Protein backbone atom coordinates (compact mmCIF):
# COMPACT_ATOMS: atom_id res chain seq x y z
CA UNK A 1 0.00 0.00 0.00
CA UNK A 2 2.78 2.42 0.92
CA UNK A 3 4.47 1.50 -2.33
CA UNK A 4 1.37 2.47 -4.25
CA UNK A 5 1.05 5.80 -2.50
CA UNK A 6 4.74 6.46 -2.96
CA UNK A 7 4.46 5.61 -6.63
CA UNK A 8 1.54 7.95 -7.16
CA UNK A 9 2.64 10.73 -9.48
CA UNK A 10 0.67 13.94 -9.13
CA UNK A 11 1.86 15.23 -12.49
CA UNK A 12 0.78 12.12 -14.33
CA UNK A 13 -2.58 12.20 -12.57
CA UNK A 14 -3.03 15.84 -13.51
CA UNK A 15 -2.17 15.28 -17.15
CA UNK A 16 -4.19 12.09 -17.40
CA UNK A 17 -7.26 13.82 -15.94
CA UNK A 18 -6.94 16.85 -18.18
CA UNK A 19 -6.24 14.87 -21.33
CA UNK A 20 -8.81 12.21 -20.65
CA UNK A 21 -11.62 14.62 -19.90
CA UNK A 22 -10.69 16.63 -22.98
CA UNK A 23 -10.67 13.38 -24.96
CA UNK A 24 -14.10 12.42 -23.65
CA UNK A 25 -15.61 15.75 -24.62
CA UNK A 26 -13.88 15.93 -27.99
CA UNK A 27 -14.82 12.39 -28.92
CA UNK A 28 -18.34 12.92 -27.67
CA UNK A 29 -18.73 15.89 -29.93
CA UNK A 30 -16.84 14.68 -32.98
CA UNK A 31 -17.21 10.92 -32.84
CA UNK A 32 -19.59 9.16 -30.51
CA UNK A 33 -22.62 11.33 -30.97
CA UNK A 34 -22.55 11.52 -34.76
CA UNK A 35 -21.53 7.87 -35.11
CA UNK A 36 -24.23 6.64 -32.78
CA UNK A 37 -26.74 8.92 -34.45
CA UNK A 38 -25.74 7.59 -37.84
CA UNK A 39 -25.97 4.04 -36.59
CA UNK A 40 -29.34 4.62 -34.97
CA UNK A 41 -30.59 6.40 -38.06
CA UNK A 42 -29.43 3.52 -40.18
CA UNK A 43 -31.04 1.01 -37.86
CA UNK A 44 -34.28 2.95 -37.97
CA UNK A 45 -34.04 3.17 -41.72
CA UNK A 46 -33.52 -0.57 -42.02
CA UNK A 47 -36.32 -1.22 -39.60
CA UNK A 48 -38.59 1.13 -41.51
CA UNK A 49 -37.64 -0.44 -44.80
CA UNK A 50 -38.30 -3.90 -43.40
CA UNK A 51 -41.63 -2.79 -42.05
CA UNK A 52 -42.54 -1.16 -45.34
CA UNK A 53 -41.53 -4.30 -47.20
CA UNK A 54 -43.66 -6.38 -44.92
CA UNK A 55 -46.56 -4.02 -45.36
CA UNK A 56 -46.13 -4.07 -49.11
CA UNK A 57 -46.05 -7.83 -49.02
CA UNK A 58 -49.20 -7.95 -46.95
CA UNK A 59 -50.83 -5.52 -49.33
CA UNK A 60 -49.71 -7.63 -52.26
CA UNK A 61 -51.14 -10.68 -50.61
CA UNK A 62 -54.37 -8.86 -49.97
CA UNK A 63 -54.43 -7.58 -53.52
CA UNK A 64 -53.76 -10.96 -55.01
CA UNK A 65 -56.42 -12.45 -52.78
CA UNK A 66 -58.77 -9.74 -53.97
CA UNK A 67 -57.80 -10.38 -57.55
CA UNK A 68 -58.45 -14.02 -57.15
CA UNK A 69 -61.79 -13.28 -55.64
CA UNK A 70 -62.66 -10.95 -58.46
CA UNK A 71 -61.52 -13.53 -60.97
CA UNK A 72 -63.56 -16.22 -59.33
CA UNK A 73 -66.55 -13.91 -59.28
CA UNK A 74 -66.04 -13.10 -62.92
CA UNK A 75 -65.77 -16.76 -63.73
CA UNK A 76 -69.00 -17.48 -61.92
CA UNK A 77 -70.63 -14.55 -63.64
CA UNK A 78 -69.42 -15.70 -67.02
CA UNK A 79 -70.71 -19.14 -66.34
CA UNK A 80 -74.00 -17.70 -65.25
CA UNK A 81 -74.20 -15.50 -68.31
CA UNK A 82 -73.33 -18.39 -70.53
CA UNK A 83 -75.88 -20.56 -68.84
CA UNK A 84 -78.48 -17.87 -69.13
CA UNK A 85 -77.59 -17.36 -72.77
CA UNK A 86 -77.79 -21.01 -73.45
CA UNK A 87 -81.13 -21.34 -71.78
CA UNK A 88 -82.41 -18.22 -73.50
CA UNK A 89 -81.19 -19.56 -76.79
CA UNK A 90 -82.83 -22.86 -76.19
CA UNK A 91 -86.00 -21.21 -75.09
CA UNK A 92 -85.93 -18.96 -78.09
CA UNK A 93 -85.39 -21.85 -80.37
CA UNK A 94 -88.09 -23.80 -78.68
CA UNK A 95 -90.39 -20.83 -78.74
CA UNK A 96 -89.64 -20.19 -82.36
CA UNK A 97 -90.18 -23.80 -83.12
CA UNK A 98 -93.44 -23.99 -81.31
CA UNK A 99 -94.55 -20.68 -82.71
CA UNK A 100 -93.62 -21.78 -86.15
CA UNK A 101 -95.41 -25.02 -85.80
CA UNK A 102 -98.54 -23.40 -84.41
CA UNK A 103 -98.37 -20.80 -87.11
CA UNK A 104 -97.90 -23.49 -89.67
CA UNK A 105 -100.79 -25.39 -88.24
CA UNK A 106 -102.85 -22.30 -88.19
CA UNK A 107 -101.93 -21.59 -91.74
CA UNK A 108 -102.62 -25.14 -92.65
CA UNK A 109 -105.97 -25.16 -90.92
CA UNK A 110 -106.93 -21.83 -92.35
CA UNK A 111 -105.80 -23.07 -95.72
CA UNK A 112 -107.79 -26.19 -95.20
CA UNK A 113 -110.76 -24.15 -94.16
CA UNK A 114 -110.26 -21.91 -97.11
CA UNK A 115 -110.00 -24.89 -99.28
CA UNK A 116 -113.13 -26.33 -97.77
CA UNK A 117 -114.94 -23.07 -98.14
CA UNK A 118 -113.72 -22.76 -101.70
CA UNK A 119 -114.68 -26.32 -102.22
CA UNK A 120 -118.09 -25.73 -100.75
CA UNK A 121 -118.40 -22.60 -102.74
CA UNK A 122 -117.41 -24.42 -105.83
CA UNK A 123 -119.70 -27.26 -104.95
CA UNK A 124 -122.66 -25.01 -104.29
CA UNK A 125 -121.89 -23.19 -107.51
CA UNK A 126 -121.62 -26.44 -109.29
CA UNK A 127 -124.78 -27.55 -107.56
CA UNK A 128 -126.50 -24.33 -108.47
CA UNK A 129 -125.24 -24.58 -112.00
CA UNK A 130 -126.21 -28.18 -112.12
CA UNK A 131 -129.64 -27.26 -110.77
CA UNK A 132 -129.91 -24.44 -113.21
CA UNK A 133 -128.77 -26.61 -116.01
CA UNK A 134 -131.03 -29.39 -114.94
CA UNK A 135 -133.94 -27.00 -114.58
CA UNK A 136 -133.12 -25.66 -117.98
CA UNK A 137 -132.84 -29.10 -119.32
CA UNK A 138 -135.98 -30.06 -117.52
CA UNK A 139 -137.67 -27.04 -118.94
CA UNK A 140 -136.38 -27.85 -122.36
CA UNK A 141 -137.37 -31.43 -121.97
CA UNK A 142 -140.71 -30.51 -120.57
CA UNK A 143 -141.22 -28.10 -123.31
CA UNK A 144 -140.40 -30.60 -125.85
CA UNK A 145 -142.36 -33.32 -124.09
CA UNK A 146 -145.31 -31.21 -123.45
CA UNK A 147 -145.63 -30.02 -126.99
CA UNK A 148 -148.21 -32.62 -127.84
CA UNK A 149 -151.12 -33.80 -125.78
CA UNK A 150 -150.25 -37.42 -126.10
CA UNK A 151 -147.04 -37.05 -124.36
CA UNK A 152 -148.71 -34.99 -121.72
CA UNK A 153 -151.15 -37.63 -120.96
CA UNK A 154 -148.58 -40.29 -120.90
CA UNK A 155 -146.64 -38.38 -118.43
CA UNK A 156 -149.47 -37.76 -116.14
CA UNK A 157 -150.33 -41.33 -116.26
CA UNK A 158 -146.90 -42.42 -115.53
CA UNK A 159 -146.67 -39.99 -112.63
CA UNK A 160 -149.92 -41.17 -111.33
CA UNK A 161 -148.88 -44.72 -111.62
CA UNK A 162 -145.86 -43.95 -109.72
CA UNK A 163 -147.93 -42.22 -107.10
CA UNK A 164 -150.37 -45.05 -106.80
CA UNK A 165 -147.64 -47.61 -106.57
CA UNK B 1 10.04 -17.74 13.96
CA UNK B 2 8.18 -14.92 12.35
CA UNK B 3 6.02 -15.68 9.34
CA UNK B 4 6.44 -13.04 6.64
CA UNK B 5 3.40 -11.07 5.55
CA UNK B 6 3.76 -12.27 1.98
CA UNK B 7 2.81 -15.79 3.15
CA UNK B 8 -0.46 -14.43 4.47
CA UNK B 9 -1.04 -12.66 1.19
CA UNK B 10 -0.35 -15.90 -0.64
CA UNK B 11 -2.88 -17.73 1.50
CA UNK B 12 -5.45 -15.03 0.80
CA UNK B 13 -4.77 -15.31 -2.92
CA UNK B 14 -5.31 -19.08 -2.75
CA UNK B 15 -8.73 -18.41 -1.29
CA UNK B 16 -9.46 -15.86 -3.97
CA UNK B 17 -8.35 -18.28 -6.65
CA UNK B 18 -10.66 -21.00 -5.35
CA UNK B 19 -13.50 -18.50 -5.14
CA UNK B 20 -13.11 -17.20 -8.67
CA UNK B 21 -12.70 -20.74 -9.94
CA UNK B 22 -15.96 -21.71 -8.28
CA UNK B 23 -17.77 -18.75 -9.76
CA UNK B 24 -16.41 -19.41 -13.24
CA UNK B 25 -17.20 -23.12 -13.07
CA UNK B 26 -20.70 -22.63 -11.78
CA UNK B 27 -21.37 -19.92 -14.33
CA UNK B 28 -20.25 -22.28 -17.10
CA UNK B 29 -22.58 -24.95 -15.76
CA UNK B 30 -25.43 -22.50 -15.61
CA UNK B 31 -24.74 -21.28 -19.14
CA UNK B 32 -24.66 -24.83 -20.41
CA UNK B 33 -27.97 -25.47 -18.75
CA UNK B 34 -29.62 -22.27 -19.89
CA UNK B 35 -27.79 -20.86 -22.90
CA UNK B 36 -30.47 -18.19 -23.37
CA UNK B 37 -29.45 -16.62 -20.03
CA UNK B 38 -25.86 -16.20 -21.25
CA UNK B 39 -25.75 -12.40 -21.02
CA UNK B 40 -27.17 -12.11 -17.52
CA UNK B 41 -25.04 -14.93 -16.17
CA UNK B 42 -21.91 -13.44 -17.63
CA UNK B 43 -22.60 -10.06 -16.04
CA UNK B 44 -23.35 -11.58 -12.67
CA UNK B 45 -20.26 -13.76 -12.91
CA UNK B 46 -18.01 -10.85 -13.73
CA UNK B 47 -19.37 -8.74 -10.90
CA UNK B 48 -18.96 -11.52 -8.36
CA UNK B 49 -15.47 -12.32 -9.62
CA UNK B 50 -14.57 -8.64 -9.49
CA UNK B 51 -15.71 -8.34 -5.88
CA UNK B 52 -13.65 -11.35 -4.84
CA UNK B 53 -10.70 -10.13 -6.82
CA UNK B 54 -10.86 -6.95 -4.77
CA UNK B 55 -10.14 -8.96 -1.64
CA UNK B 56 -7.14 -10.52 -3.35
CA UNK B 57 -5.79 -7.09 -4.23
CA UNK B 58 -6.40 -5.85 -0.73
CA UNK B 59 -4.36 -8.78 0.57
CA UNK B 60 -1.58 -8.22 -1.93
CA UNK B 61 -1.27 -4.52 -1.32
CA UNK B 62 -1.53 -4.89 2.43
CA UNK B 63 1.88 -6.55 2.34
Amino acid sequence: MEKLIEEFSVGLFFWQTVLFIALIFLLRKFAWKPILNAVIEREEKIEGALKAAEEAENKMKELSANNEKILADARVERENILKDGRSIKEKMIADAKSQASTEAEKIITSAKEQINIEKMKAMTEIKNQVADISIEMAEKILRTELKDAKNQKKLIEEALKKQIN
Amino acid sequence: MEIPAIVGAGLAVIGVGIGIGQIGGKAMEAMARQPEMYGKLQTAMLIAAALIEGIGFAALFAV
Partner: protein
Amino acid sequence: MHRFLKTMNLEMAKKLVISVLIVLVANFLWASASPVKDTVSTYTAEEKADQKKSKIKEDIKHHLQDSHDFHLFTDETTGKHYGFPLPVILWDEELHVFMSSEFHHGESIVQSKDKYYELHHGKIHRTDESGNIIESAHPIDFSITKNVFMIMVISLMLFIMLFRTNKSYKKRGHLPSGIGRFIEPIILYVRDDIAIPNIGKKHYRKYMGFLLTVFFFVWLVNLFGLTPIGVNITNNIAVTFCLALLTYLITIFTAKKTYWLHLIDPLGNTMPWIAKIPLYILLVPIELLGTIIKPFSLMIRLYANITAGHIVLMSLIGMMFVFNNWIGSSLSFLLAFTLGILELLVAALQAYIFTMLSAVYFGSAVAEHEHDEEH
Protein backbone atom coordinates in the same frame (compact mmCIF):
# COMPACT_ATOMS: atom_id res chain seq x y z
CA MET C 1 -17.69 -10.82 -28.96
CA HIS C 2 -18.98 -13.46 -31.38
CA ARG C 3 -20.91 -10.83 -33.32
CA PHE C 4 -17.80 -8.77 -33.68
CA LEU C 5 -15.89 -11.77 -34.94
CA LYS C 6 -18.60 -12.61 -37.39
CA THR C 7 -18.37 -9.25 -39.05
CA MET C 8 -14.65 -9.62 -39.45
CA ASN C 9 -13.93 -11.54 -42.57
CA LEU C 10 -11.11 -13.96 -43.09
CA GLU C 11 -8.95 -11.47 -44.92
CA MET C 12 -9.09 -9.00 -42.06
CA ALA C 13 -8.46 -11.71 -39.50
CA LYS C 14 -5.39 -12.86 -41.40
CA LYS C 15 -4.01 -9.36 -41.59
CA LEU C 16 -4.65 -8.85 -37.90
CA VAL C 17 -2.93 -12.07 -36.91
CA ILE C 18 0.06 -11.29 -39.10
CA SER C 19 0.45 -7.79 -37.69
CA VAL C 20 0.14 -9.14 -34.16
CA LEU C 21 2.86 -11.67 -34.86
CA ILE C 22 5.08 -9.00 -36.35
CA VAL C 23 4.67 -6.83 -33.27
CA LEU C 24 5.37 -9.72 -30.95
CA VAL C 25 8.42 -10.88 -32.86
CA ALA C 26 9.67 -7.30 -32.99
CA ASN C 27 9.21 -7.15 -29.25
CA PHE C 28 11.43 -10.12 -28.67
CA LEU C 29 13.98 -9.01 -31.19
CA TRP C 30 14.02 -5.76 -29.32
CA ALA C 31 14.60 -7.52 -26.10
CA SER C 32 17.43 -9.54 -27.58
CA ALA C 33 18.94 -6.45 -29.16
CA SER C 34 19.77 -5.06 -25.75
CA PRO C 35 21.31 -8.10 -24.10
CA VAL C 36 23.38 -7.90 -21.02
CA LYS C 37 26.92 -7.57 -22.26
CA ASP C 38 29.79 -9.16 -20.43
CA THR C 39 32.10 -6.25 -20.04
CA VAL C 40 34.59 -8.05 -17.85
CA SER C 41 35.17 -11.71 -18.49
CA THR C 42 37.18 -12.44 -15.40
CA TYR C 43 34.13 -13.29 -13.30
CA THR C 44 33.15 -16.90 -12.66
CA ALA C 45 30.05 -18.29 -14.33
CA GLU C 46 27.99 -18.03 -11.17
CA GLU C 47 28.95 -14.45 -10.58
CA LYS C 48 28.11 -13.66 -14.15
CA ALA C 49 24.66 -15.20 -13.77
CA ASP C 50 24.12 -13.20 -10.60
CA GLN C 51 25.16 -10.06 -12.38
CA LYS C 52 22.78 -10.81 -15.19
CA LYS C 53 19.93 -11.40 -12.79
CA SER C 54 20.44 -8.13 -11.00
CA LYS C 55 20.75 -6.34 -14.34
CA ILE C 56 17.51 -7.90 -15.54
CA LYS C 57 15.78 -6.92 -12.33
CA GLU C 58 16.95 -3.38 -12.81
CA ASP C 59 15.85 -3.42 -16.45
CA ILE C 60 12.37 -4.60 -15.49
CA LYS C 61 12.13 -1.95 -12.82
CA HIS C 62 13.28 0.65 -15.29
CA HIS C 63 10.83 -0.59 -17.87
CA LEU C 64 7.92 -0.29 -15.47
CA GLN C 65 8.91 3.21 -14.37
CA ASP C 66 7.93 6.48 -15.90
CA SER C 67 10.80 8.64 -17.14
CA HIS C 68 11.43 12.23 -18.03
CA ASP C 69 12.85 11.55 -21.47
CA PHE C 70 11.73 9.23 -24.23
CA HIS C 71 14.40 6.64 -23.90
CA LEU C 72 14.48 4.10 -26.73
CA PHE C 73 17.63 2.09 -26.06
CA THR C 74 21.16 2.38 -24.75
CA ASP C 75 24.34 1.27 -26.38
CA GLU C 76 26.02 -0.27 -23.36
CA THR C 77 29.51 -0.50 -24.80
CA THR C 78 29.74 3.22 -25.47
CA GLY C 79 27.22 4.22 -22.82
CA LYS C 80 25.27 6.26 -25.33
CA HIS C 81 21.53 6.74 -24.89
CA TYR C 82 19.22 6.91 -27.87
CA GLY C 83 15.91 8.71 -27.62
CA PHE C 84 14.62 12.24 -27.39
CA PRO C 85 14.17 14.63 -24.47
CA LEU C 86 10.80 15.82 -23.17
CA PRO C 87 9.95 19.08 -21.43
CA VAL C 88 10.14 19.26 -17.67
CA ILE C 89 7.56 21.43 -15.98
CA LEU C 90 7.98 22.07 -12.27
CA TRP C 91 5.92 24.04 -9.80
CA ASP C 92 8.17 25.15 -6.99
CA GLU C 93 6.70 28.44 -5.80
CA GLU C 94 7.00 29.49 -9.42
CA LEU C 95 6.95 27.79 -12.77
CA HIS C 96 10.11 26.17 -14.09
CA VAL C 97 10.26 24.85 -17.62
CA PHE C 98 13.30 23.26 -19.24
CA MET C 99 14.13 20.25 -21.38
CA SER C 100 14.98 16.96 -19.70
CA SER C 101 18.15 16.70 -21.80
CA GLU C 102 19.69 19.24 -19.42
CA PHE C 103 19.82 16.56 -16.74
CA HIS C 104 22.07 14.44 -18.96
CA HIS C 105 20.33 11.30 -17.69
CA GLY C 106 20.67 12.24 -14.06
CA GLU C 107 24.32 13.07 -14.31
CA SER C 108 24.16 16.84 -13.94
CA ILE C 109 22.33 19.46 -11.91
CA VAL C 110 20.08 21.92 -13.69
CA GLN C 111 19.83 25.55 -12.72
CA SER C 112 16.50 27.20 -13.38
CA LYS C 113 15.60 30.65 -12.05
CA ASP C 114 18.23 30.53 -9.27
CA LYS C 115 17.08 27.12 -8.07
CA TYR C 116 18.90 23.84 -8.62
CA TYR C 117 17.32 20.54 -9.53
CA GLU C 118 18.56 17.02 -9.76
CA LEU C 119 17.07 13.88 -11.29
CA HIS C 120 17.45 11.00 -8.89
CA HIS C 121 15.84 7.57 -9.56
CA GLY C 122 13.22 9.08 -11.81
CA LYS C 123 12.30 11.79 -9.32
CA ILE C 124 13.22 15.45 -9.41
CA HIS C 125 14.60 16.94 -6.21
CA ARG C 126 15.68 20.45 -5.38
CA THR C 127 19.32 20.70 -4.48
CA ASP C 128 21.74 23.36 -3.48
CA GLU C 129 24.55 24.50 -5.74
CA SER C 130 26.81 21.57 -4.91
CA GLY C 131 24.12 18.94 -5.49
CA ASN C 132 22.95 18.13 -1.95
CA ILE C 133 19.22 17.34 -1.88
CA ILE C 134 17.14 19.83 0.12
CA GLU C 135 14.59 17.58 1.91
CA SER C 136 12.24 20.39 2.94
CA ALA C 137 11.49 21.47 -0.64
CA HIS C 138 8.81 19.59 -2.54
CA PRO C 139 8.67 20.69 -6.15
CA ILE C 140 5.51 19.43 -7.82
CA ASP C 141 6.34 17.68 -11.03
CA PHE C 142 4.01 18.46 -13.94
CA SER C 143 6.49 17.31 -16.56
CA ILE C 144 5.49 15.89 -19.88
CA THR C 145 6.97 12.52 -19.04
CA LYS C 146 7.16 9.52 -21.35
CA ASN C 147 3.75 8.34 -20.20
CA VAL C 148 2.14 11.75 -20.56
CA PHE C 149 3.67 12.05 -24.00
CA MET C 150 2.28 8.65 -24.98
CA ILE C 151 -1.13 9.51 -23.55
CA MET C 152 -1.11 12.53 -25.82
CA VAL C 153 -0.01 10.49 -28.83
CA ILE C 154 -2.58 7.77 -28.20
CA SER C 155 -5.35 10.29 -27.58
CA LEU C 156 -4.48 12.01 -30.83
CA MET C 157 -4.45 8.67 -32.64
CA LEU C 158 -7.79 7.72 -31.16
CA PHE C 159 -9.23 11.06 -32.10
CA ILE C 160 -8.01 10.88 -35.69
CA MET C 161 -9.19 7.29 -36.00
CA LEU C 162 -12.66 8.06 -34.74
CA PHE C 163 -12.93 11.34 -36.56
CA ARG C 164 -12.23 9.47 -39.77
CA THR C 165 -14.80 6.87 -38.83
CA ASN C 166 -17.34 9.61 -38.34
CA LYS C 167 -16.42 11.20 -41.66
CA SER C 168 -16.75 7.91 -43.48
CA TYR C 169 -20.39 7.79 -42.44
CA LYS C 170 -21.07 11.09 -44.12
CA LYS C 171 -19.31 10.00 -47.28
CA ARG C 172 -21.24 6.81 -47.82
CA GLY C 173 -24.60 7.67 -46.42
CA HIS C 174 -25.10 5.44 -43.41
CA LEU C 175 -22.34 2.96 -44.04
CA PRO C 176 -18.86 3.11 -42.55
CA SER C 177 -15.82 2.59 -44.72
CA GLY C 178 -12.14 2.08 -44.15
CA ILE C 179 -11.24 2.02 -40.48
CA GLY C 180 -14.88 2.60 -39.59
CA ARG C 181 -15.64 -0.95 -40.59
CA PHE C 182 -13.32 -2.14 -37.85
CA ILE C 183 -14.48 0.42 -35.30
CA GLU C 184 -18.21 0.15 -35.78
CA PRO C 185 -18.70 -3.45 -34.57
CA ILE C 186 -16.77 -2.55 -31.41
CA ILE C 187 -18.92 0.52 -30.81
CA LEU C 188 -22.02 -1.57 -31.36
CA TYR C 189 -20.66 -4.24 -29.06
CA VAL C 190 -20.08 -1.72 -26.29
CA ARG C 191 -23.54 -0.31 -26.82
CA ASP C 192 -25.55 -3.53 -27.23
CA ASP C 193 -23.69 -5.89 -24.92
CA ILE C 194 -22.26 -3.60 -22.26
CA ALA C 195 -24.28 -0.41 -21.96
CA ILE C 196 -27.85 -1.38 -22.74
CA PRO C 197 -28.09 -4.61 -20.69
CA ASN C 198 -26.51 -2.98 -17.63
CA ILE C 199 -27.85 0.55 -17.70
CA GLY C 200 -31.12 0.12 -19.53
CA LYS C 201 -32.50 1.53 -22.75
CA LYS C 202 -33.80 4.67 -21.07
CA HIS C 203 -30.61 6.12 -19.63
CA TYR C 204 -27.76 4.52 -21.51
CA ARG C 205 -27.15 7.32 -23.99
CA LYS C 206 -25.65 9.83 -21.59
CA TYR C 207 -23.02 7.30 -20.45
CA MET C 208 -22.00 6.18 -23.91
CA GLY C 209 -19.38 8.90 -24.28
CA PHE C 210 -17.52 7.85 -21.17
CA LEU C 211 -17.90 4.11 -21.69
CA LEU C 212 -16.72 4.15 -25.29
CA THR C 213 -13.83 6.50 -24.55
CA VAL C 214 -12.69 4.40 -21.61
CA PHE C 215 -12.96 1.19 -23.59
CA PHE C 216 -10.97 2.42 -26.56
CA PHE C 217 -8.47 4.34 -24.44
CA VAL C 218 -7.68 1.49 -22.08
CA TRP C 219 -7.53 -1.03 -24.89
CA LEU C 220 -5.23 1.05 -27.05
CA VAL C 221 -3.02 2.00 -24.11
CA ASN C 222 -2.72 -1.63 -23.04
CA LEU C 223 -1.82 -2.64 -26.58
CA PHE C 224 0.82 0.08 -26.77
CA GLY C 225 2.26 -1.28 -23.58
CA LEU C 226 2.99 -4.51 -25.45
CA THR C 227 4.87 -2.84 -28.29
CA PRO C 228 8.65 -2.56 -28.28
CA ILE C 229 8.36 1.14 -27.40
CA GLY C 230 7.59 -0.18 -23.97
CA VAL C 231 5.37 2.44 -22.42
CA ASN C 232 3.15 1.15 -19.67
CA ILE C 233 0.58 3.80 -19.05
CA THR C 234 -1.96 1.66 -17.26
CA ASN C 235 0.62 0.35 -14.83
CA ASN C 236 0.75 3.77 -13.22
CA ILE C 237 -1.60 3.96 -10.31
CA ALA C 238 -2.23 7.65 -11.10
CA VAL C 239 -3.73 6.78 -14.48
CA THR C 240 -6.02 4.04 -13.22
CA PHE C 241 -6.89 6.21 -10.24
CA CYS C 242 -8.01 8.94 -12.62
CA LEU C 243 -10.18 6.53 -14.62
CA ALA C 244 -11.74 4.98 -11.52
CA LEU C 245 -12.30 8.40 -9.98
CA LEU C 246 -14.19 9.50 -13.08
CA THR C 247 -16.37 6.40 -12.89
CA TYR C 248 -17.04 7.13 -9.23
CA LEU C 249 -17.83 10.80 -9.82
CA ILE C 250 -20.13 10.08 -12.75
CA THR C 251 -21.93 7.43 -10.68
CA ILE C 252 -22.47 9.85 -7.84
CA PHE C 253 -23.46 12.88 -9.88
CA THR C 254 -25.94 11.06 -12.07
CA ALA C 255 -27.40 8.94 -9.27
CA LYS C 256 -31.16 9.01 -8.88
CA LYS C 257 -33.02 9.26 -5.58
CA THR C 258 -33.45 5.51 -5.39
CA TYR C 259 -29.68 5.02 -5.36
CA TRP C 260 -29.26 7.19 -2.26
CA LEU C 261 -32.33 5.69 -0.64
CA HIS C 262 -30.88 2.28 -1.22
CA LEU C 263 -27.63 3.38 0.41
CA ILE C 264 -29.26 4.79 3.52
CA ASP C 265 -32.18 2.40 3.69
CA PRO C 266 -31.05 -0.84 2.05
CA LEU C 267 -33.84 -2.99 3.44
CA GLY C 268 -36.69 -0.74 2.36
CA ASN C 269 -40.14 -1.47 3.70
CA THR C 270 -39.52 -5.10 4.43
CA MET C 271 -39.52 -4.70 8.22
CA PRO C 272 -40.53 -2.18 10.91
CA TRP C 273 -38.08 0.64 11.50
CA ILE C 274 -37.28 -0.37 15.07
CA ALA C 275 -36.02 -3.71 13.88
CA LYS C 276 -33.92 -2.02 11.25
CA ILE C 277 -31.91 0.18 13.62
CA PRO C 278 -29.51 -2.48 14.99
CA LEU C 279 -29.06 -3.89 11.50
CA TYR C 280 -28.35 -0.52 10.01
CA ILE C 281 -25.56 0.22 12.45
CA LEU C 282 -23.73 -2.52 10.58
CA LEU C 283 -25.32 -2.35 7.14
CA VAL C 284 -25.13 1.33 6.29
CA PRO C 285 -21.36 1.68 6.84
CA ILE C 286 -20.84 -1.43 4.73
CA GLU C 287 -22.97 0.00 1.94
CA LEU C 288 -21.20 3.33 2.12
CA LEU C 289 -17.83 1.62 2.16
CA GLY C 290 -18.97 -0.48 -0.80
CA THR C 291 -19.40 2.60 -2.95
CA ILE C 292 -15.74 3.45 -2.40
CA ILE C 293 -14.46 -0.12 -2.62
CA LYS C 294 -16.03 -0.55 -6.05
CA PRO C 295 -14.03 2.13 -7.85
CA PHE C 296 -11.00 1.25 -5.72
CA SER C 297 -11.08 -2.32 -6.97
CA LEU C 298 -11.53 -0.97 -10.50
CA MET C 299 -8.35 1.03 -10.07
CA ILE C 300 -6.33 -1.78 -8.51
CA ARG C 301 -7.55 -4.41 -10.96
CA LEU C 302 -6.39 -2.62 -14.05
CA TYR C 303 -3.12 -1.55 -12.45
CA ALA C 304 -2.31 -4.96 -11.00
CA ASN C 305 -3.22 -6.94 -14.09
CA ILE C 306 -1.09 -4.88 -16.41
CA THR C 307 1.81 -4.59 -13.99
CA ALA C 308 1.81 -8.29 -13.23
CA GLY C 309 1.57 -9.16 -16.91
CA HIS C 310 4.53 -6.96 -17.74
CA ILE C 311 6.66 -8.23 -14.88
CA VAL C 312 6.03 -11.86 -15.83
CA LEU C 313 6.58 -11.21 -19.52
CA MET C 314 9.78 -9.26 -18.92
CA SER C 315 11.03 -11.90 -16.49
CA LEU C 316 10.46 -14.63 -19.04
CA ILE C 317 12.30 -12.63 -21.68
CA GLY C 318 15.10 -12.08 -19.16
CA MET C 319 15.23 -15.82 -18.47
CA MET C 320 16.39 -16.35 -22.03
CA PHE C 321 19.64 -14.57 -21.16
CA VAL C 322 19.96 -16.16 -17.77
CA PHE C 323 19.67 -19.68 -19.16
CA ASN C 324 21.95 -18.84 -22.06
CA ASN C 325 21.64 -22.29 -23.60
CA TRP C 326 19.61 -23.73 -26.46
CA ILE C 327 17.04 -25.69 -24.50
CA GLY C 328 16.30 -23.30 -21.68
CA SER C 329 16.34 -20.19 -23.80
CA SER C 330 14.08 -21.57 -26.53
CA LEU C 331 11.68 -22.93 -23.91
CA SER C 332 11.46 -19.60 -22.16
CA PHE C 333 11.10 -17.92 -25.55
CA LEU C 334 8.11 -20.15 -26.31
CA LEU C 335 6.64 -19.44 -22.91
CA ALA C 336 7.17 -15.71 -23.33
CA PHE C 337 5.66 -15.83 -26.80
CA THR C 338 2.55 -17.61 -25.54
CA LEU C 339 2.28 -15.20 -22.67
CA GLY C 340 2.65 -12.34 -25.12
CA ILE C 341 -0.38 -13.56 -27.03
CA LEU C 342 -2.21 -14.00 -23.74
CA GLU C 343 -1.32 -10.44 -22.80
CA LEU C 344 -2.95 -9.24 -26.01
CA LEU C 345 -6.12 -10.92 -24.81
CA VAL C 346 -5.69 -9.45 -21.34
CA ALA C 347 -5.30 -5.98 -22.88
CA ALA C 348 -8.75 -6.26 -24.44
CA LEU C 349 -10.22 -8.14 -21.48
CA GLN C 350 -9.19 -5.50 -18.95
CA ALA C 351 -10.65 -2.76 -21.14
CA TYR C 352 -13.84 -4.82 -21.39
CA ILE C 353 -14.05 -5.47 -17.65
CA PHE C 354 -13.36 -1.86 -16.77
CA THR C 355 -16.10 -0.70 -19.14
CA MET C 356 -18.45 -3.46 -18.05
CA LEU C 357 -18.10 -2.74 -14.35
CA SER C 358 -18.40 1.00 -14.93
CA ALA C 359 -21.62 0.30 -16.80
CA VAL C 360 -22.85 -1.87 -13.93
CA TYR C 361 -22.15 0.92 -11.42
CA PHE C 362 -23.88 3.47 -13.64
CA GLY C 363 -26.77 1.07 -13.98
CA SER C 364 -27.13 0.85 -10.19
CA ALA C 365 -27.11 4.65 -10.04
CA VAL C 366 -30.05 5.06 -12.39
CA ALA C 367 -31.99 1.90 -11.51
CA GLU C 368 -35.61 2.67 -10.73
CA HIS C 369 -37.14 0.41 -8.11
CA GLU C 370 -36.16 -2.66 -10.02
CA HIS C 371 -34.54 -3.86 -6.86
CA ASP C 372 -37.80 -4.17 -4.99
CA GLU C 373 -39.56 -6.00 -7.74
CA GLU C 374 -36.83 -8.56 -8.18
CA HIS C 375 -37.18 -9.97 -4.69
